């Protein structure tokens, strides 16, 4: 006879066994066709709006302006200065009660700075720090008052009092330091009698701290001293006579960013307008000579020097005047217009430069101190030169190669690990009158190329073109499809890395005829995906 308990045990074991049967997730693969993104690329997207000007017929010009000659850093440079002052009790010992004066009654001190021929009579500090180190040999606390009568803030002279701790013993002095911000102080640099320049007046007063409980005898060896250091002094404004000297500005180079994305190739410009603008915001006469101006293409190593009438010729620069507004001075300006007929400005730009160089000589106050110490200078407003390039987008391009890097972030895309493989299709409807050969490179964080993505042929064909006057213009759009096949590894790479370099090579239609770009030209992109997706419940 089978035991009832045995049967019960079998039954419940079976039920538990069935219920606890291990289950995995089912998964299967599906084929998904879906649009990913769409975008339109106009000339506004390629170049910043701030650089573009649109003509009456919609033709586009690029206007690029760069300041490439600057003088403010070299004109005035006030060195860091340290002044040491010590007070001794001369000849004999002296007993001083609390409050007793150690220093002479009117201990004014004048310090004249040497500024290479520049005579400053007044100024205002943008920044500057005074560092004080005080010493006390007296075994009583010293009350030390430090005044700079010629430095005022909102009309109030600088005046501070510091308590120096008592010396530890007769051989061990005490020290104390203080740091004082001088930003915003007005300076009178004409001395106690207001008849000199570059001179700072200070006054010291040292006495036994009146709160001390008893007096003390001090001897000639006792010293109360102060060392004051001025560091990082930058004027906001200065006035005086700035001397007559010759200043070399350059040779130096500055970045020229208009073509920074272009890696190689050449262009031909139908026309170009360039203006060289010299501006003097300094209240000082000068004479400037443009020794050299050049453009450099670092990729090719090619340099083009500017040939123009004003080069190597002394140019008299008049002093600016106060504006009592903003900007603080009314500048002297001189504009030189350069074009195909009076210069090689077009060649300067067709060089596709990434750097602009200059070598300038400036003679200050060539006629001497004709202003009676009333030259002035606001630190942000000095002498500079600007180059303004107006580039009508009527050109031909041969293998112009642009490169740009895009950072992206797909970290929040859900279930991306279930996207197995597939093909991305980029459909481009090109409304520009040029072909574009495009390639996408997947990159790691160090900029190392991991993979190229677009299969050959990778051409976006030019829009249909027609001739309008002397120009070739786009007339409609041409559709091209680029395929990006992705195997499973490439798919995961796409999600793993987050940087893509886009390299595009342009060739205009009908070169060397010029194509004209209008504000209506655009490329419409549509990116679609056909991929295997693993459904994983």
């Amino acid at each position, binding site marked *: 006879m089978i035991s009832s308990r045995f049967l019960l045990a079998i039954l419940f074991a079976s039920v538990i066994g069935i219920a606890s049967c291990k289950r995995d997730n089912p998964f299967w693969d599906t*084929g998904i066709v879906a*649009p990913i*993104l769409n*975008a339109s690329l106009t000339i506004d997207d390629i170049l910043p709006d701030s650089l573009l000007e649109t003509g009456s017929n919609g033709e586009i010009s690029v206007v690029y302006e760069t300041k490439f000659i600057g003088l403010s850093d070299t004109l005035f440079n006030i060195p860091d200065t340290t002044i040491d002052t010590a007070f001794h009790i001369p000849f004999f010992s002296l007993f001083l009660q609390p409050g007793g004066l150690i220093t002479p009654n009117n201990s004014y001190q004048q310090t004249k700075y040497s500024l290479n021929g520049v005579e400053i009579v007044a100024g205002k500090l943008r920044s500057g720090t005074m560092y004080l180190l005080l010493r006390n040999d007296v075994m009583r606390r010293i009350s030390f008052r430090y005044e700079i009568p010629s430095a005022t803030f909102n009309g109030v002279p600088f005046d501070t009092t510091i308590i120096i701790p008592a010396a530890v013993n007769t051989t061990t002095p005490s020290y104390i330091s203080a740091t004082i911000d001088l930003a915003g102080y007005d300076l009178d640099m004409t001395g106690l009698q207001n008849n000199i320049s570059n001179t700072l007046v200070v006054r010291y007063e040292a006495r036994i701290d009146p709160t001390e409980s008893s007096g003390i005898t001090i001897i000639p060896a006792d010293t109360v001293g102060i060392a004051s250091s001025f560091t990082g002094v930058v004027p906001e404004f200065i006035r005086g006579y700035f001397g007559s000297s010759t200043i070399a500005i350059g040779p130096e180079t500055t970045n020229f960013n208009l073509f920074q994305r272009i890696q190689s190739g050449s262009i031909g410009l139908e026309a170009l307008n360039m203006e060289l603008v010299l501006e003097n915001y300094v209240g000082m006469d000068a004479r400037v000579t443009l020794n050299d101006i050049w453009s450099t293409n670092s990729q090719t190593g090619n340099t083009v020097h500017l040939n123009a009438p004003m080069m190597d010729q002394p140019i008299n620069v008049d002093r600016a005047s106060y504006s009592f507004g903003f900007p603080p001075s009314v500048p002297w300006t001189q504009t030189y217009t350069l074009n195909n007929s009076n210069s090689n400005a077009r060649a300067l730009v067709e060089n596709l430069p990434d750097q602009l160089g200059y070598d300038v000589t400036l003679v200050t106050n060539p006629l001497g101190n004709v202003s009676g110490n009333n030259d002035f200078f606001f630190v942000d407003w000095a002498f500079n030169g600007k180059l303004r390039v107006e580039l009508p987008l009527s050109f031909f391009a041969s293998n112009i190669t642009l490169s740009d890097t*895009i950072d992206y972030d797909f*970290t929040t895309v859900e279930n991306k690990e279930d996207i197995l493989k597939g093909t991305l299709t980029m459909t481009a409807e090109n409304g520009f009158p040029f072909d574009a050969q495009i390639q996408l490179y997947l990159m790691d964080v160090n900029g190392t190329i991991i993979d190229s993505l677009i299969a050959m042929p990778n051409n976006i064909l030019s829009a249909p073109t027609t001739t309008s006057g002397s120009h070739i213009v786009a007339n409609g759009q041409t559709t091209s499809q680029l395929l990006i096949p992705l195997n499973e590894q490439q798919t995961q790479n796409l999600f793993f890395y987050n940087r893509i370099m886009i390299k595009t090579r342009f060739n205009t239609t009908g070169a060397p005829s010029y194509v004209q770009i209008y504000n209506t030209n655009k490329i419409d992109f549509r990116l679609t995906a056909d991929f295997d997706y693993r459904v994983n419940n």
Partner: protein
Amino acid sequence: MRMKFRNSFFIAGLFFGSTAFAQDPMETYFLWPSGQNVATKVQTWASYSTGSDMLTNGFVNKLYLGGYIDDGLKSSVMKRQNSYNIVGATADLGVAGVFRFRKPDVVGDGVTQISHKHFMSIRVRDRYRLDGAFGPEAFQLAFYGNRPFRGQTADLSDIKFRFLHWQQVQLQIPLSNTTGIGLSVLKGESFFKGETRKANLFTDPNGYALNVNADFTYQMSDTAKSSFKAWHGTGASLDLYQSFYFGMDQNYVLHLAASDIGFIKWSGQSQTFQKDTSFSYTGFTIDDLTNLNDSSFAGLSTDSLLPTAQFKSVTTWLPATLQATFLIRSEGKWNGMARASLYPNSTARPELKMTAMWKPNKHFGLRTSVAVGGFSRFRIPIETEIAFARKIYVRGGIDNALAFIVPDKSGGQGAFVSLTYSFERGYSN
């Protein structure tokens, strides 16, 4: 002593007809207290069944047990597609107690009669039920993606899915020797229901756009708790039975049963999402191609496609069963049965089932059936019973032998097992 056969059938139907599922894998006629001194029987059981006229057993097994569903498996399902397909599943766990208050009446010549006044039963059940219906393109879209629909419209209309999980305390009382009633109190644990009315997805031939038209409703119970303790709905249900006897020896019996006529009212924290919308998705529009940062892809979440949830009470009708069973009985080893079933509030189709029962002795019984309809197309259920020491019945069976023989060409499967223990006592009346 010979018992009066007529009444024993009724009691059996009363107590166990109600355990039938939509697929009815458990036709239990074995619990009635046959012994003179049997006072109480206790039964516990567990069962499940699934069925579909499209999904194969091989496919369902993968779906449930996990693993990779390859193209061959999907293809075997696609070969069985209809213009409209159904799927269903059910599970039932429970314990029952059947109590007899008196010993059988002696009606003469040693024949005893079991009266309806002698019995009642109480059951506690944990039940699951899934009903679904869908067109073939819904399956194709779900398991093949929209690539096959490039340039075409996938019709997703009239998709219906409803899942119920509830617990049931069921009191069954005979009203007469041929009539009975069952009353249940239901505790709703969870449910969800989704259905589309008019819905389709168009995939542009070039993949430039996905156009969706969708008129759908989705409802779900309170998600605050999901365990057995969750009480998110309350309901009641009714079971009714009536038997008719024919023939000289009343060898023919027509048994009518209606079970699970009831409802569950889900709490006010139930959520309803309803939307009738059309939209075209053309991908993300990138304003600045040189700045493909994460914000360019904002709104990738599908949450934005869902309407705002409405919190309100929802009432769901239970999937009911209406059955007419015709039984041909004999005193020999063989009996036969035919049953027609209807399943209101369910996606299951009407079902016809023919059963041959073989019981060579009182310790062993075997029955096999053929069934068409319900959730499946064609099934061969097999079940057996073994009695031990007059006190213990073990029953078990499978819902479809074809599930083991040709899993990739058959739909519908299930299994059950039950254990019944009889307590005996002497009667004083």
